């Protein structure tokens, strides 16, 4: 019997560098749609983008006074992200979240869960984690693992879509 060979999925690769709510929503909007359209999607979270995939609960564990200070000022977590405009000490962002609920738009957390369900690969940049003296422990379990730039470039080389957000 002839083996049925499925055509390889087309790939999409996203660098998520920004840690703001609006940019994170845009990134997950594109990522989930690409996955829904049958693409194999990888999101590579680096620098401020790590804030999107940090756990919301608990304290960030790190050593060194500069690292501790950075992680205190840059706590992150999907529920704490500011907007890139009109954050206004949380007032603007709170109003935007209320508007999103009113229009029955999914929250960032729901988008992350949807992406995970659709098989989107979420990878954290090991250099950024190292810089902030964090380990994978600080990240949500949906994150598949850590990798370096060569891994991303390798995926991007094979991808039809590459985005930097």
């Amino acid at each position, binding site marked *: 019997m002839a083996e049925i060979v499925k055509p390889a999925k087309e790939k999409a690769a996203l660098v998520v560098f920004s840690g703001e709510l609006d940019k994170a929503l845009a990134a997950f*909007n594109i990522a989930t749609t690409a*996955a829904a*359209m049958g693409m194999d999607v990888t999101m590579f979270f680096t620098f401020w983008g790590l804030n999107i995939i940090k756990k919301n609960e608990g304290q960030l564990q790190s050593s060194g006074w500069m690292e501790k200070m950075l992680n205190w000022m840059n706590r992150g977590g999907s529920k704490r992200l500011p907007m890139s405009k009109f954050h206004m000490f949380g007032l603007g962002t709170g109003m935007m979240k209320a508007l999103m609920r009113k229009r*029955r738009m999914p929250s960032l957390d729901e988008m992350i869960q949807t992406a995970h369900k659709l098989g989107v690969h979420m990878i954290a940049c090991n250099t950024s984690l190292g810089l902030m003296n964090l380990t994978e422990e600080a990240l949500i379990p949906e994150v598949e693992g850590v990798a370096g730039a060569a891994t991303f470039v390798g995926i991007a080389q094979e991808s039809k879509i590459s985005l930097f957000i």
Partner: protein
Amino acid sequence: MNADIKADAILDCVGLYCPMPIIQTTEHIAGLEAGQVLEVVADDKGIVTDMPAWCKGTGHEYLGMQQQGGEYHVFVRKKHG
């Protein structure tokens, strides 16, 4: 489109914005048999161009659309294999 096309399942996406109708279509079509027809009802105008694009990307068959007031009824036939 053929007016007497019959849907095997209906997905109500009224009130939802992009990309939710497409995401929910992806989830719902997985539960259908090949050849069955899914009717998606939405009031976000994006569906008019998004659903044909989704069909082109996934290989499912776009059968057409009917506009009833502010609602769009879009028909998709699940592909084989």
